[in-house]
């Protein structure tokens, strides 16, 4: 059913959900096709995820190893099961819903590296406006063709994109501290 989507590279079925991976350049074509031909008239959500360091840090386990356990680094020891690698650093997922007598959901996903742009789908679903601004604000993904791509949740002069994995947690710069 999703093989005819423009730019489709992969259709994944997992956990009872369908993910259609499309080429970034043809994202808008794919979305227009899904909206007009397949009836996905409702955009539920746009979610971006950062996979920096995916599978590098130990992926847990409470099974001990022959080398014992490093008690100073909880959750990082044990037999490591590495998750499957991801094609690029960021994924942007569009959760579509066919709001009709026959409700269906599909996830359209596209992959980008830092600095690459994703075409905006505001012209396809106006609701994408704030979702894309949020993805830019918190994850630093640029959407080309967005009419108003500014920060939405953070201040205009905020530096960095907090939901990135390399954004420091805890410790904010303190003015006039002793070190300064």
């Amino acid at each position: 059913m999703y093989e005819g989507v423009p730019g489709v590279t992969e259709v994944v079925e997992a956990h009872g959900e369908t993910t259609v991976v499309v080429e970034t350049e043809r994202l808008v074509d794919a979305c227009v096709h899904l909206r007009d031909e397949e009836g996905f008239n409702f955009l539920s959500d746009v979610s971006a995820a950062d996979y920096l360091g995916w599978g590098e840090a130990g992926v847990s386990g409470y099974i001990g190893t022959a080398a014992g356990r490093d008690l100073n680094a909880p959750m990082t020891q044990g037999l490591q099961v590495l998750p499957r690698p991801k094609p690029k650093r960021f994924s942007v997922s569009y959760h579509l819903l066919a709001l009709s007598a026959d409700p269906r959901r599909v996830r359209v996903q596209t992959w980008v590296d830092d600095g690459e742009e994703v075409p905006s789908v505001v012209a396809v679903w106006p609701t994408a406006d704030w979702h894309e601004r949020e993805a830019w604000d918190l994850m630093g993904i640029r959407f080309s063709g967005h009419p108003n791509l500014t920060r939405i949740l953070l201040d205009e002069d905020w530096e960095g994109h907090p939901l990135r994995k390399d954004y420091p947690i805890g410790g904010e710069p303190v003015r006039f501290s002793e070190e300064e």
Partner: protein
Amino acid sequence: MAVSPVATRAPIYEGTRIPHPVPTVLRVPDELRATGDVMTVNFGPNHPSTHGVLRLVVDLFGEDVVGLEAVIGYLHTGFEKNMEQKTWWKAITYPERIDYLSYQANELVFVLAIEKLLGLEIPPKASWMRTCLCELNRIHSHLVWLGTSALELGAISMFWYCFREREQILDLFELVTGARMHTRYFQAGGLAEDIPRGFFPEARKLVEWMPHAIDEYEAMLSRNKIWLERTQGIGLLSAADAIALGQSGPVLRASGVDWDLRRAEPYLAYPEVDFDVPVYHEGDVYARYRVHVDEMRQSTRIVAQCLDRLEAMEGEPWIADDRKVVLPPREELHTSMESLIHHFKIVTEGYRVPEGEVYVAVESPRGELGCYVVSDGGPRPWRVKFRAPSFVALEATATCMSDALIADMIAIVGSLDTVMGEVDR
């Protein structure tokens, strides 16, 4: 379900009113700007009528709203980032605090996402109790909405009436979970504790009283001249525009779209529950009020059915029997070494959730509440993203306000039923 959810009657207005090019910003037309009579007024972020810290930058031409931009983010606390640092078990406390009026629904959607990744079945008693509490929470959330929205339009007595019943519901939550708000009663696998005995008689009292209470609210508002004048024909949103703007919940149903996730994509015990989905076709503030009131009646019906089923389940398990995920029973900790180890491991390191990504959506009091979760197979979520219905609802302010007066603004913003904690997360 053979009928299309979008009714085939005359649209609320012709064409679309979604502003162009930015769908969420109403821009002042140049010829109006050229008159020099347009005044820009800043509204909020601290204003008693904004349901929290919402800032609206409004352009006024006389009393007409000719330009509008909503500015959000004043309550951003980084819930999603925080959850990435916690184990799955500890992260359950976060979603509740995102929307402080419908905490059970927020908790539920995250727990359902964990269970979907784990492939964990929950016992029927847990399923029914979750349904029951979520519906009580819907009533609670709608009561706060009704009380505060009416208060903002000057009907102060509504506030006291609504909070009277709200107290009863909070007392019930306290009885069951020990906390009035942010209950953290849902665990991956079921419930945190069994239902206490005293719950049923108290809940029955509420179920019996609630229809009379709703009659009282309706007696005060439904045919109140001032209320009608201030809400009817105000804040119009057509079905097509509502869908294009991603609206859900009461806002969508007030625009004539017969859509409810509890019926369209049933979860928990909803397939076995008998309830109606109220739909109104006017698309104005009054229609949204009617939907909210009718939903409280329906939720009361659902709670009554849940109580009937739950009372017959005395002694049944309330949590799945999966020792890798679920804490062992407290009494075993004194006698069983394995139980103690499991308890220690789950609490300190957390359980592991298989690699994958899921999107789970439930019908929260405000509409489609979605949760997108990515797991790398570890004990902590890799990424959690909430599709907050309030966030999306605020996108419709510019469209709803395209022909509004300044006095209507409060009514319109209120009718979208946003909780700023959820908007900003």
